[in-house]
Structure formats: C-alpha cells, structure tokens
C-alpha cells in the first residue's frame, strides 16, 4: 500500500490552525458588591459667615483692611469618629483655596454613622520626614504643589499670604505684605470637629461633608489676636507667631 503523506499532513495542519486560534471567550465575573463608601469633603472658606472671596478686601478683627491672596494647608491623619471608635479616611490631604474653596473625594471609606472628625493641621511627622520624590503627580505631597521647604526637607503646613493696610477706613489698595508659612514638626496640631449631626457613609454611595473655614478667624481666637502690624512674617523661624497662627487656623474650622 502506497503511503499518502496527506493522511498525516492535513490533520496536522488543522491542529496547527486550531492551536493558533484565539482563546475561547471567558464570561466575565460580575464585580463584587462594594464594601466601602466614598466621602466628598468640601472645604468652604467664609468671612463673617458669608462666602469668602479670594483677593477681596475685608476689614479684620483689628479693623485693618486685608486682602488675602493665598490659603493652602494640609490635613493629616483624617479620621471619622463615633461612639464606637474611628476609621482612617485619609493619611494626608492638601487644600488650595485659590478658587474660593476646594474639594477632595476619598474612596474606600468604612461605612458607618459618624458624628465627628479628627485630623492634624499639617503633615504628620512620618510623612513630613519622607523623601518627597516618591510621590507621584497629583499626590498631596507632590513637590509640584509648591509646599515643600527644600532647605529643611519638610513641608509648609499652612501658607497664608496677602496684603494689609492698617487704616481700616482707607481707600488705597492695601500694599503691605503678610506672608505666614508654618511648618516643621513643631507646628503639627491635632483637632476634633463635631459634625453637628451624623454623617452616614454607606457602601457603594457618596456622602458629602462640608467644612467651613472662617478666614476672618484665622486672625484671632477667643484669647489671642494676630496683629499684622507686628506679626506678618513667619517662614520656619519666628515659632511663636507660627504657633499662634496655627491655633487660630485650627479653631477656624467648623461644620454646620
């Protein structure tokens, strides 16, 4: 019987073609139901209870005319609290109020009924001491935010800049600059906020929390006043002014 090579070659070719074919489609598994929620935190600056406008001229507690030109700050170790404990929401957040407010959105928040918030005004020491190069673009600690003190390998926690005129009834533009930047680990200050009612975070949905920052109160507390005539500059040194400003800023936050 004569050997016909087609008896081997044809099936082999068929197998080869099948072997090169695309994989069979696999039915995608349905995504698991979300177990965490999303929190949108709105930072809303105010002045005497009304919406604050950057670069507007206001009269402050000393009746100096002030024009605030920049507010940037960090909140670290942001947690939601209730009677049973707390949950870490975000290790670090950066707020830039140049557009009269700022909003951050955090996913992965533990569902629950929360009545309070705790945070640190500034950058926690472990993050403050880390190498800023490791943070990708868009990260709160990215160098591009312009909030890093390169001479001290540390972050500026609070940048509060503007101009003032001691004459509260004057009409000329305020020209004297104030520039107060707090930072270094000494200025990190923890605080708690009563949310004034419960905020409910549910799995798979977004909850919104609005925090007011009373910019007018950044100049004073119940027992102290930042007098721009003599206290208008701090950049790492001048710690007493930096701490005074930190105290004022921390008590300027509230939730309606």
């Amino acid at each position, binding site marked *: 019987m004569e050997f016909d090579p087609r008896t081997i*070659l044809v099936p082999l070719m068929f197998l080869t073609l099948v072997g090169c074919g695309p994989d069979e489609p696999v039915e995608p598994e349905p995504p698991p139901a979300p177990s965490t929620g999303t929190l949108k935190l709105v930072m809303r600056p105010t002045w005497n209870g009304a919406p604050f406008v950057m670069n507007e001229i206001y009269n402050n507690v000393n009746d100096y005319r002030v024009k605030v030109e920049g507010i940037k700050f960090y909140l670290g170790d942001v947690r939601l609290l209730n009677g049973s404990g707390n949950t870490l929401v975000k290790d670090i957040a950066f707020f830039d109020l140049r557009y009269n407010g700022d909003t951050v959105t955090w996913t992965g928040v533990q569902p629950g009924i929360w009545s309070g918030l705790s945070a640190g005004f500034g950058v926690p020491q472990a993050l403050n001491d880390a190498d800023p190069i490791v943070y990708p673009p868009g990260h709160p600690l990215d160098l591009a935010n312009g909030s890093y003190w*390169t001479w*001290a390998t540390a972050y500026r926690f609070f940048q509060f800049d503007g101009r003032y005129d001691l004459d509260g009834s004057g009409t000329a533009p305020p020209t004297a600059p104030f520039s107060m930047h707090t930072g*270094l680990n000494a200025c990190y200050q923890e605080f708690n906020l009563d949310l004034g009612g419960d905020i409910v975070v549910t799995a798979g949905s977004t909850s919104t929390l609005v925090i007011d920052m009373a910019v007018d109160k950044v100049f004073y507390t119940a027992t102290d006043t930042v007098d721009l005539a003599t206290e208008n500059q701090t950049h790492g*040194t001048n710690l007493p002014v930096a701490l005074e400003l930190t105290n004022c800023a921390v008590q300027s936050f509230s939730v309606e």
Partner: protein
Amino acid sequence: MKTWTIAILLLVMLGACRKDPVIVQEEVDGPFLLALPLGAPSPLIPENNPLTVASVTLGKALFFDPRLSRDGTISCASCHFPDRAFSDTVALSRGVDGLTGMRNAPSLGNVVYHTAMFRDGGVDDLERQVIAPVEDPVEMDHSLQGAVDAVANDLEYQRKSQLAYGRPLDAFVITRAIASYERTLISGWSRYDRYMYGGELPALNESEVRGLALFNSELLNCTACHNGFDLSDHSYQNIGQYLTYADPGRERISLDPGDAGKFKVPSLRNVAMTGPYMHDGAMATLEEVVDHFASGGQPHPNRSPLLTNFALSAEERTDLIAFLNALTDERSLDQVP
C-alpha cells in the same frame, strides 16, 4: 504536486509560529570603585543608591549641566568650583539673573561623611539636598519637574538612567545620580595626609610642623571642633562672629533660640582655596580668620564655650597659616572620568 504545496505551506506556518531569535547585547553597569586615601574611613553609601559607574558618571554630567536651572545658565558647578575644592569664590553665591543667595556655598569635599547638609544642617541626606538649589528662587529657580523636562530627551542621560536605575530619567534619578557623584568627592591627598597617615615626615616643612603643633595645642583649642579625618566634627557652633546675626543659622531648623548664630563646623581640608570664609563669606583671608579666633569673637549669648582667645607671635601666626596651606589636596577631588 498539491501534496508538496501543502507540506511547504505547513512548514512556513510552523516557522511563523516560532519565536524569533533574539540577539541582545546588553550593556551592564558595574560598581564604581571609590579611591580612598590613607586614613579615610569607609563611607556609608545608602543601600538604595549604590555607587555605580553609570550613576556617578550620570551624576557628574548633571552636576555640570546648566539646563537644570530656569534660564539654563546655572549648574551646581557654578557655585561649587572643582578647582576650589567644590566651593565658591564669592562671599554670597549667585543664582539666576545674578541674584544673590543667602550664604556662601561650602566645599563639597568629603560631603559623604556629613550626616546633615547645608550650613544649618537642614537637610538630612544628599539625595534631598539636590532639590533645594534647583528650586531655590535665588539659585536655579526651577521646579524639579522643569529640570527633568529640560534634560529628559538627552539620549546619553536616558541610556545611563536606564543602566543605573532601570527607569527613565526623572526626579528620582536626578537626585540619586547627583548625590552619588557628590559622594565620590573625597579629599585626603594633601601633604598633611602624607605626613599624618603616610608617615612621610618630610612632607611637611619645619614651619608647617610648628603650625600643626599649634593647631593641636590646648591654647588654641582648634581640635575641639576641627578633628577627625575630615578635620571637623560637623557640630553646630556659634563662633561669635556677630553680636546679632542676620542669618539665624541652626535656629532656622531647630527653632531653638539657643541655636541662633550656630553653623556647621566646616572641614579645614583645602581651606587655603575655599575662601571667602564663614557662612556669609565675610572673611576674605586665612589671616582674618586666625585673627578672629585669636580675639575670641563677639560675646554673643550662644558663643561656643570652646572658644578661647589667644595671642600668637607673628612667627606663630605664619606657622599656623603655613600648616593650613598644607591641607590642600595634591590631586583633584573629582575621581569620576
């Protein structure tokens, strides 16, 4: 005939499914062999940034590259001159647009042995130190990302970046590479070293030997701070240069008023070529420096208790300065090809 056509087709198909032969001639990076002079301690090199041929040669190229500055005019070497032991020649270092900096740029010799950078010790390591001059508005006045963008298309930089760090040139690579190059700037090849560590007694002349004895004497007490291989303990001292300091010095970092006017003790290596002296370059000559210490300085509240005034004869003053001149390296600090 048809059968053979099918067979050939099959062979072609099988051949097409085979992996192409790949001939890769991979470039390989290797460790950089740091030359250490006699008496030099083994430097601590961070495990996450080892010295390699690619990292230090890339770092050297970046160190001399003015594209890292905002207007492309200022490089690290603009204030750290290689022929001045990587120090500056002017009292206050100049940045872009001729702007005057805050301090006199110090020598980078033996910076590998420093545990904190800058005259106030504000930065903990060389990698993060690199960021400061790039972003300082009176130095390079750039953003680090802007500096990256300015050089990222350089093919040679890209090649070395991949070799050394396995990633494209970015801020991580720039800071690591320049730090690596700076770690190679070892100083320790002076006549003093030949005398001290090499046992070559003729390396110093009689005047210099007398100067060394004065330097080591209790009367002058120089070695209270200027000791060890780097001739500095890298502590922070107020030397009574002023009654009121315009520059807070170490206080800027520690926020402790007790640190006002304190600055890191500089190495005395190559001191003859690192003037002008002090944090603000206020003293032009070694004679001025010696006279300052002989006077004991101004009675600033933070003045170091290690400072004691002393009197030197003209000959002793000459001898002491002759010894200081013998601390100049006889070869370049730069050992990167």
